[in-house]
């Protein structure tokens, strides 16, 4: 089965009001080219589920988000995401604020077809008090109360990987695949952008096959977009773009998202990459030291 699609055709599958999961973590390996394609589209009223960074900030600022399911939104070296803060501080979005691990449990419940997974995580805190939809339950085995973390069922997931073949075998060569496998499994439709499209024989090497974290049946579409994680990192191919994030962060205080998008977004990814200095410049960005 050939799952290759253009970014535009893939993102056109996202409909108003859908729940969209976004892989990666903060400023790390986010499917930013797919996010930019959403910014160029008319789709709206999305529920977004993410370990958020600029993906969430941009979608909030562009008015695409009706509801956000989050544990944090951060650019890491710039701790507070400027457009997420604006969206919260203006009351523009509904939120379901959870613990990082609760989000993982919600994705697992969705992936496994369960209505919820019981956990102690969240007890005694405002992630329960501020979320009337998250219920506390009795255990059939002890006298304690537990959090019933509901399944986070996703209509669509967006993920960026290093390499993929046309059938949707996806390699993440960097040190961490984050929770991307669960985003892939929790969604009805998983759209994966890759820095490089490779032949299936690429995965014959067992060391490479070990860098594939979900089966191709959990991948619905493959979009080849070299540099597609920019300005986030795609370790080991490139780091995150500190200068670009600083400009993005500054734009929130000076002109807002319209000015940022006017300067960088472009009509398509080729134009975006010209606006940020080209693919060679993206691939030359040094990896961060933690």
């Amino acid at each position, binding site marked *: 089965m050939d799952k290759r699609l253009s970014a535009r055709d893939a993102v056109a599958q996202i409909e108003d009001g859908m729940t969209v999961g976004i892989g990666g*973590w903060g400023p790390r390996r986010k499917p930013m080219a797919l996010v930019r394609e959403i910014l160029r589209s008319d789709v709206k009223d999305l529920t977004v589920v993410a370990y958020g960074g600029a993906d969430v900030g941009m979608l909030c600022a562009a008015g695409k988000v009706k509801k956000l399911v*989050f*544990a*944090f*939104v*951060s650019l890491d070296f710039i*701790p*507070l995401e400027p457009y*997420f*803060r604006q969206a*919260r*501080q*203006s*009351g523009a979005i509904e939120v379901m*604020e*959870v*613990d*990082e*691990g*609760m989000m*993982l449990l919600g994705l697992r419940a969705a992936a496994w077809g369960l209505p919820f997974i019981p*956990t*102690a*995580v*969240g*007890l*005694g*805190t*405002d*992630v329960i*008090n*501020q979320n009337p939809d998250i219920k*506390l339950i009795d255990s059939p085995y*002890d*006298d*304690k*109360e537990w959090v019933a973390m509901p399944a986070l069922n996703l209509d669509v997931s967006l993920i960026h990987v290093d390499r993929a073949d046309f059938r949707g075998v996806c390699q993440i060569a960097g*040190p*961490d*695949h*984050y*929770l991307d*496998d*669960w985003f892939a499994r929790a969604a009805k439709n998983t759209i994966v952008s890759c820095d490089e499209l490779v032949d299936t024989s690429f995965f014959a090497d067992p060391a490479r096959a070990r860098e594939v974290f979900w089966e191709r049946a959990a991948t619905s579409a493959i979009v080849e977009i070299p540099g597609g994680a920019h300005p986030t990192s795609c370790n080991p191919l490139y780091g995150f773009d500190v200068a670009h994030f600083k400009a993005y962060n500054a734009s929130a205080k000076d002109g807002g998202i319209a000015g940022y998008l006017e300067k960088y977004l472009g009509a398509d990814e080729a134009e975006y990459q010209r606006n940020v200095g080209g693919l060679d410049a993206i691939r030359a960005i040094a990896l961060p*030291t*933690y």
Partner: protein
Amino acid sequence: MSTVATDYTLAELCIVAAAEAFRHDGEVLATGIGVIPRLAASLAMKTFNPDLMMTDSEAFLLSEPNPIGKRPADFQQANETWMGFSRIFDNVWSGKRHAMLGPTQIDRFGQTNTSALGGTYQQPKVMMLGARGFPGNSICHANSFFVPGHNTRIFMDGECDFVSSIGYNPARLPRGRSLDDVDIRRVVTNLCVMDFGGPEHQIRLLSLHPGVTLEEVQDNTGYPIAVPADVPTTPAPTDEQLAIIAGLDPHNQRAAQIADNPPGIRA
């Protein structure tokens, strides 16, 4: 024998005081978020508790802590196993972890806030990071706090605007659990060391940093502190500890963690 240092910064004093939080932990993952907590956990692992586990702050567990900041091109970190974020949760939920973090508010119950300040929850006046992993950390394993600027905005009157982590608040105690299940260890600030070992888990003064008075600590804390009869001075670093800290922080990032990088002994 190591000699007690006479020339050290307040940041270095805090690193040594915070390292003590991990002394009796045994074999747990020590997670220090921020320069001083990370150096504290690293110092503990390199000296009195070599059983501690530590990550590279990215995706591997290390048998030897990494120095902070840019490292030489030929630097080889001492990987022990893969420890990506999904596996961190397996560790957190097992309870074999002690985290030291810096929340924005800490109330009299030891509850903390990392998320929404002021206004309403639907429209906070100031939005910060979000709950992050604080809810899970607080119900699953030991936690300590580091506060570089001890004041009444952080140690605030009343209850946290948003409770990210469970503390010793009877009104929020989950059914079937005891307040003793909550495990808040040390609170290290630029003024003193505290814990929640006072009557009914009240915050308690353990030591004052050199030259700091009890009045100054109480004036900068929005709720009463239990004060034992004898409050010692926070022990000074040893020369050996200072040398290890310098090796762990070759770019002296610790100098930028407390306002004006004051000396450990007040002038």
